[in-house]
């Protein structure tokens, strides 16, 4: 089961009360400190990558619409709600955003309108342009947290931007701009020594709210979105955000595997696993290589730890306790493995295995979503990996 991705998106005080405590933080910190020097990254020699970061329109990019139809019939209700089947059937802004992206990619405007209609009618309950991140069908009220999740907001804004491009509808563009500008206004710290930092949420992660704040989640850096959001909010330095994200990734390496933890403290240039969270590379972080590859950004140094992570068990995906480098859990559903296949495709031009070229019916919402997005990324940028 996927640990609830945003389970830690709660107020800082609540987080302290939570039972999630890093068992060996000291080790992780030590590893972090050494990681900031010259880092031996895996056994692989440094390579020169020739990735192409040219922004690509998402509209109509999905070449296998039958996968989308199956996904839609399983995970999206008639009213446009995206169901997290592994998490008590809840919905979240992130899932709505993924589904909107896939609908644009599948050129499915009726479905897109359903999903966006549900999203705004049910999650845009805050007094700003951001979304409440969590919604539950069996509670009163449906919204169960007023805080936002930055990646959900970014995904929705990106999907609306792509919809505005594909269908040339001004209403989508206006909505995209309002969200994107609000993200830039409320969630990005543009003038830090480390470059632009993206807060995971409005509440609970900033310097004034946690002793180790600001705390970041690098998997919230949706790299392929940033290059496209400049279409609707060009005044914001999205490229700077991409660059700072890549830079942070080079610094945020802990333990023997040099992997980032899910939640990282960036307080005053000391980069270390954030307090009160399991110091793991897990369900959140596995999206980092997905987003980099999908955007065509990053150098070898950015990918090296993920490459080693994938290669270590020949494509089998695990969550890792960073301090020890030990696996804590095998992520067995096929959708997770698709991330590994994408990494190998991106770096080695390895063909996507036949078993991973279509999503599996047995997968839950999250791995199924990752799978579709990984395939979409391959179709958009690494088509040669799909040739036999």
């Amino acid at each position: 089961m996927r640990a609830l991705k945003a389970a830690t998106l709660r107020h800082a005080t609540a987080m302290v009360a939570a039972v999630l405590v890093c068992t060996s933080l000291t080790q992780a910190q030590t590893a972090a400190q050494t990681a900031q020097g010259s880092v031996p990254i895996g056994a692989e020699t440094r390579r020169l990558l020739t990735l192409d970061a040219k922004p690509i329109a998402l509209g109509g990019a999905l070449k296998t619409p039958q996968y989308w139809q199956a996904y839609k019939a399983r995970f999206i209700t008639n009213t446009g709600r995206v169901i997290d089947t592994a998490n008590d059937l809840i919905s979240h802004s992130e899932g709505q955003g993924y589904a909107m992206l896939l609908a644009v990619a599948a050129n499915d405007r009726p479905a897109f309108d359903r999903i966006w209609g549900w999203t705004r009618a049910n999650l845009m309950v805050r007094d700003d342009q951001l979304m409440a991140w969590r919604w539950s069908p069996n509670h009163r009220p449906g919204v169960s947290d007023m805080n936002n999740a930055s990646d959900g907001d970014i995904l929705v804004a990106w999907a609306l931007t792509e919809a505005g491009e594909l269908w040339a509808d001004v209403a989508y563009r206006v909505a995209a701009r309002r969200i994107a500008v609000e993200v830039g206004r409320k969630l990005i710290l543009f003038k830090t020594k480390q470059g632009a930092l993206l807060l995971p949420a409005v509440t609970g992660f900033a310097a004034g709210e946690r002793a180790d704040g600001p705390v970041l989640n690098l998997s919230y850096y949706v790299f392929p979105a940033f290059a496209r959001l400049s279409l609707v909010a060009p005044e914001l330095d999205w490229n700077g955000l991409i660059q700072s994200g890549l830079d942070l990734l080079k610094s945020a390496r802990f333990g023997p595997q040099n992997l980032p933890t899910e939640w990282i403290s960036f307080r005053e240039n000391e980069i270390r696993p954030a307090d009160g969270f399991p110091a793991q590379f897990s369900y959140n972080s596995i999206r980092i290589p997905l987003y980099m590859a999908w955007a065509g950004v990053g150098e070898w140094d950015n990918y090296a730890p993920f490459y080693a992570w994938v290669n270590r068990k020949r494509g089998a995906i695990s969550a890792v306790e960073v301090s020890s480098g030990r696996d804590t859990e095998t992520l067995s559903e096929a959708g997770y493995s698709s991330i590994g296949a994408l990494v190998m495709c991106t770096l080695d031009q390895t063909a996507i295995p036949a078993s991973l070229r279509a999503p599996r019916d047995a997968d839950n919402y999250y791995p199924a979503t990752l799978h579709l997005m990984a395939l979409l990324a391959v179709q958009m940028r690494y088509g040669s990996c799909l040739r036999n």
Partner: protein
Amino acid sequence: MPQKLTARRLLLSISAAALFSAHAALAQQGTFIIEGMTPSQPPARETAPPRAAPAPSLDRPPSPLSALELSKRPVSPLQPAPAPGATGLVLGGGSGIGSAASLGLQLAPGEGPDDSALRYYASLNQTNRVQTEIRRLQRLYPGWEVPNDLYNQAKAGGEDEQALWDLFAADQLDDLRAAIDQRIRAEPGWQPSAELTQKLARKTVRNKVMSLYGTGKLQDLLDYIKKDGFNAEDADIDVLWAVAETFAKTRQTQDAVQIYKSILTLNRESDVRIATIQKAMASMRMNDVEPLIAMGAVSADGKSEFAAIQTDITRARISAFLHDERPTEIPAPELKAFEDYARGASDPDQAGLVAWYYYKTKVFREALEWFKLALERGGDAMIAHGLAHSLRELGMYRETEEVAYAWRQPLINNAILFIDILERDLTKEIPPYIEPERLFRYAQVTKDLASGEGAQGLAWYAYNSCQYDVAYEWFQRAAAWLPKEATVYGLALSARKAKRSREFIELVNRYDGLFPKVVGLLFPDRTVRPPAACDLLTASPKQRQQMMSAYYAAQNGYQQQPQLPSQSGRPANGLRPTIGLPRQAYGGPQSYQQNYQTSAPQAPYTPWAMRPEPMPKLNPNEFPIAMNPENPLRFASTGKLLGKPMPIAANGTVTLTQMAPEYYRGPQPLVAQRVPGVGPMPYERYGFTLLAGWNGTTSASDPHNAETAPAGTLWATEQAADARSTGGVSRGAGADAMRQDPEAAAAALGQLPRVPPPNAAMGNAMQFMQMPAPTQQQGPGPGRQSRLRFDHSPVSTIETTSVAMSSPNASSPTAQTLSLLAFLKPKQLLDTEPLPSAPSRAPLAKATDDLGREAAGRYNDQQYQAALDVLDRRAETMPEPIDLRLIRGWALIKLGRDGDARQVFGSLDSKQPLASREFTTPAIIDEGSP
């Protein structure tokens, strides 16, 4: 305030334009003839690569000292020969060249001058430089003669190298290396000449660097030069520029700066130096370029050697300022020079740049003028956007609305501004008169954009002018598109007023636990409110009298009581009126009653708290009832296309295909759970509480603290600025007076136009139309719109607008906008007025308040901006007396903001202080009476 950010888009494009200009300027200089590039003595062994930029010398002249060092150094084959002076990148402040002219130095007997540089040039066959060096040495050492063997050394290696040189000249370096290897093997002891070795090594490096640079492989380039021990001193100017740019683009700024500095140190050619500055501006932030500019020589008359590109420099400085990369404003003379240039330039972006500069420095009147000029020059929708924002900052909201509307199609920023600027008036508690045509077109754009902001604006306007059915329809759309608390609250109010009790009940139950204000409609507090103007409007004279009498009686009774909880249900002082009550989840109306009847407060802190409010009677069929939590409202936009759909869109899905059923079928709970970020529910006053939240939280959030702006965000900066500014929402002209007199308010409301229902706003949005003179236009009251008047605009802007918009010639957005701004007189008139001189110390302020004294103190401490900030803060709450206004004007003069100062001194007789800034999102409107 998303609008606050919008200005930056142009800034980026302007920045890009600045860079483009720099490149264009470079391209124009491509015809320069550079010393050292003339063909050398035969054979023509250097092949000049194609270049777009000025092609300067391939070798910089060595200083005599460094040339001496060269002579001591062994030159290893196949390594780039260390050039004279290769002791590091920075060789000092450019004093090495030509600084010893005509010194007439004496040589000791037997001693010769240092001719190593001369021999170096000769070895390279650089005859021009040889001649220059000869002249230099002859000036230094009169009588010295050119050595006879000058070129002999260069020829070492023999005439039989010609075939190798041919390969070199043909750029066949691989073949050349192979030929050398072959000959070494064939002729043991043979070595290529030092010149050939040196030039081969240099050209190899050069080709590799330029190839990687040309293909954009910057990281590879860096790796190469690090690995191969790149010697910057031995590189030609193209390579140096390429490497510097590579460093800059890979954010190794200090390395880039060092290379640029070395070029400026070692090169005297004017065009190379200028091009270096231009290249540096194109690849680095201006802060990093400024030290390079400072290296420029200044002539006796004070003219910089970079004067030829001063416009580019100022442009880059302005751009840096706009991007917050430069903290200080542009010096007035420099800005003036750029203004002169921009005024004469046909390119609208130049005037636009000046406009954005003034906008950024909050000199909005100047900004407006420059935006207008840019528009006249063909400026685009972003220029119009800046113009609209300048109007807004000047309090000319009506004109802002027109400009934003005219430019809404090309740029969504303008569409958003159009929605937001009128929303401000629409949501006023006492709505101002808005012409039906304006309401109609606003409704149309709202539907086109599916704008929740616009829909709730129209809804509130309708609601506050007693049009409940129309309000309900617009609130439905607003709640589908942006269901924030104020909107759902409005929907619930209008549903109740429109007798849609089922919808009302559903709303209260659906948002139980999330929106205290909505739930509060079933749990009213005891605040005494005047009768709603709309109720008075429809009442008979007798009923009206009764209503007013009852209100006054209740008000008197209220005033005799101690303080009651505030309207929001949050008790003052943090005290809970239900202290001592067992807190439990409610299970229905019965438990409410039981709880109330059986629980007596035990430890009251204040007398009022001893008597809990009477529990309102609830209908068990109304609250709480099980409710599907999903908001079912959906409305499509009538979205107009903006541009063309992508071609692939035509192949898309057109009908809805299968989707999943809702997995969760119930049951739905009756008890709400805590939502982090939400304050207490009104019924908690009676001792009830909620279930724990999803994350275990059991207590209500303090909604006032829940959303503190995270440190470091723009939002936090805005909040700080807002705290210094108005800090609230303009209630509209005369609103306070109207609230004191409900009957007058009712009479005014009766005159307001009908809001078009959503279905009426169909078809194409209406274009500009003539506005009838408003019958109930509220006079200029204390609203901020009226605070700033243009000195040369005797007529009110509204009247001007009306005339301008009826102009038959106003067709294009540009024509419409310029027609609208016809009242703006040329600024030159203002400029002719002399400004008073600002004293170094302000006379003792007459103001007795702290802020007034603080402002004077700041002025006397020469903290002029701080003085202005204090004055702004003070002006939010009290009028500004003339002595403080003088301080304001003097501070502006001290800051070089003459335009602003003129406005201050020109309005000393005005009763209002100058508006500084105001544009806040509309507040939640409190209902007059539930």
